[in-house]
């Protein structure tokens, strides 16, 4: 067996542990799509808009370059970052047109009309898209049990994990008490307000006209 020289061990420790401790970007873990692996705080800080609401409607379309998108209209309940009106339209890549052509982006969370969500969204692109921060990490689905308790689940619309999780507790990435999530977002907002002014966002008209269809 080949033994590692002391220098190599020291270098390895430095690169593996010390540098990442001081330079978080070096940790750089990522989630495919591929996106960086983010804590809730990172997700908040990287977002241009953090909004909670109910998905009201969806309309898919195709832009001049052939990109298929869906405009999701939210009835906004509250905003944690970025001032929004009663409705807020989010354009996400992907969707299905009435022609039967569709586009999916692996890793991208999917919304469903009628679901309650907290969305963490990045800056708007020149094409009008706002991508969820960290892809699937940028969406929490809010689920209410018959007892009235609410839970925030970081997952797609197909989630079935809304039962009690005995002791296999998620480490904060998959499932949160809704009240905890709200409290943490509020604290993050107040902290960020000391450093930044949130953007004021004017809602845009959702897609219309040719080649549209409802998902």
């Amino acid at each position, binding site marked *: 067996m080949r033994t590692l020289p002391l220098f190599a061990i020291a270098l390895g420790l430095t690169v593996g542990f010390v540098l990442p401790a001081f330079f978080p970007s070096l940790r750089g*873990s990522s989630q495919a*799509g591929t*996106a960086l692996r983010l*804590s809730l705080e990172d997700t908040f800080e990287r977002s241009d808009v953090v909004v909670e609401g109910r998905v009201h409607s969806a309309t898919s379309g195709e832009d001049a*370059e052939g990109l298929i998108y869906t405009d999701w209209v939210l009835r906004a309940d509250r905003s944690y970052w970025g001032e929004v009106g009663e409705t807020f339209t989010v354009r996400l*890549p992907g969707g299905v047109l009435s022609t039967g052509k569709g586009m999916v982006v692996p890793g991208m969370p*999917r919304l469903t009309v009628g679901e309650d969500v907290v969305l963490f969204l990045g800056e708007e692109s020149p094409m009008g898209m706002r991508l969820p921060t960290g892809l699937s990490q940028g969406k929490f689905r809010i689920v209410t049990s018959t*007892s009235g308790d609410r839970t925030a689940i970081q997952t797609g619309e197909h989630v079935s994990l809304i039962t009690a999780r005995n002791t296999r507790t*998620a480490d904060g990435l998959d499932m949160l008490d809704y009240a905890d999530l709200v409290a943490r977002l509020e604290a993050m907002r107040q902290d960020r307000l000391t450093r930044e002014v949130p953007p004021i966002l004017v809602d845009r008209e959702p897609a219309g006209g040719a080649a549209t269809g409802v998902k």
Partner: protein
Amino acid sequence: MGMNKTHRPGRRGMGAALKFVAFMGIAASVMAHVRLRYSSTGAPLAWENPENISLVIQSDGSDDIGDGSHETAIRNAIDAWNSASGSRARIVESMANRSRRDWQTNNVHLVVFDENNSSGYFSGGSSIVAITPVTFFTDGRIIDADVIFNGKNFGFSTSGEIGKFDIQDVAAHELGHLLGLDHSGVCGATMYPYVDPIVILHRSLALDDQRGMRHLYPTGSFARISGKITRAGSGEVVPGAHVAARDGDGHIAAAILSDANGDFVLQGLDSGSYEVIVDPLDQPVSSSNLGGGQAIYTNFESKVLGTIAATQGQVAGMGTHTVGDDVSIQLGRVADDYPIRGVRGTVNNMIVRGSGLVAGSTLECSDPGIAIQNLSWNATFVTFEAVIPAGTPLGHADLIVTNPSGDTDFLVGGIQITPPDPQVTGVSPALGDAEGGTAVTITGSNFRSGLRVVVGNRIYRDGDTGGCVVQDSSTITLTTDDTIAGNHDVVVIDPTGVEGRRTNSFNVVVTPELETVFPMVGTLAGGTTINLTGNHFVEGTVVTIDGAIQANLVIDSPTRMRVITESGIPGGPYVLRVESPSGGFAESAFTFVDAPDPRITMVTPDASDMSGGQTVAVLGSGFGDNTRVFFGVDPRTGVGGSMASTEFIDGGQVRTVTPASSVGTTAVMAMDMETGQVSTLEAGFTYTGQEPVDGGGGSCAAVIVPGPPSWKRIIGGGGWILLALILGVWHSRMVLRPAVRAGF
């Protein structure tokens, strides 16, 4: 990240949840591996003609990579998928349309680095490293897919630079999406949802990835194992249960999710005996990592279902198996980097996070040959040593934890057993020509069959025609192909993806080629513009005449450059040398004469009819009795054109009669027929008139019947200039090909 109290609704909540799931009514058939799906119907997505999926590596490349090695890395990733046994899918690189960036268009499938958010996916401080939009029809046919790297927010590397993402690793994952795969619950799979800059093990496909290809695009009928998962007591089916098969070595051979009815079919297996396990798809992979189209249950125990023999072309049925409630121990966290690498023949220190990891628990590896020792339990993590004997089969093994109450959990495919890194200690020779043909021997250790050697933009695969040959575990031989110039790393990549590298160990030199040097004579005072044509003129090229550097050098293109001479000593021909930065050179000749170069400043009049016969004055300096004027020569090479009758007036003027020519602007050249000195005035004269026109197509153009050629035309051929060159520089020895190739 801070922990949060987890919501635990009571039975009523659970019942409501289950009703909700039933309401969703997702009846997708979830089969081998995890496939991309059209979420509304659950239709799996796949290419209709997978045998030839065209892919274009966009030519702009990455801002982070200057030596073209990103293309090599992407080609290696393509090769990994194309090499999956039992799969018909082939990604075929197309060299057409490499300049296109319109990834949205369905008729080109691109791998592109987006350095300025032109895609719109990477606005602001985007956290997306790469993305693969897949376009499909609702019947499941994929019609387009493109891989877009976020070069705006992230750095990419092919040499393991800290903090940058490995292009091959990321590309391998994204190409899996392109082919129709979603994320995998197997920690060591290329389609595992998480990658890190320091992890390169996803470069190579796990068996689970390969079984996914067999499922999507099978070449034949493989062994399958079917069964059903239900909940103990209630008998309710368990959708989305993660079921995996371990082979005789205890390594993961395939994995699937159960469908909405709790049914599973493990696909694409080789004949053999398998131990089948079931595990909730919770940490580190969860439903949030998957696209739509399937229900995922996770509130049940991990369990070994049993062992069964599977035979080629047949389905081995396991029947229905029940699982109990969820348990109080869990292994694996999103925050960890998976797979954990275990090197054969070494003792590996490992740490795994989780919950309920208390003293008194046990930890085993599914590979019985791997011993787990020196455990330290810390509730949320466990540290230990994995002793991996030298002969351990390669692959992915599970970790199995059991607490004192007997509850157990699996970390499916969490350990990847690899060989030690290849070590490259020598590369001989260290120099080669960009045109290839250099026989290279690489020495080192831990070389295994099936490896790849990367030199610059070239990949040499063991066993391929034109590839490399692993002579033994310490020697590789290959003959270079044409390669991009530069001092390159020589990288040996094991089939498992681990690599050895010797930096800057093979210098590929460009040998310039000279085709023409014009003129080959100039005044000793300097200032003569020499036009050189040929190939491989690159930045940093140096031109010398008799050893003196000619500082005024302009490289117009890889095939053309200009030199303005420094002053020289009369005589010659001297050696004119063109030397590339990498040391390759080509030589020709140049002569200095003790006379000023002719210089044309004006031609007046500067236009006349195309039929010629116009007397014009050529003004300038340095003219003599031997000066002759040519019309229509190529100003870069002096080739072509027609010599005109020329009358010497004085040193500042000659008079000439234009030869006939075609309509257009042309160069005028004055040449001293004795010395070979020239001056060229580009666009110096314009022929006017109307060219003969083809009268077809119903137009009304006049038809011009050509008459016999005039004497001017007869003597105005390019042969005159050739003759002049021969006479003027008859003593020069023109060397058009490199005399010596550096380094050989």
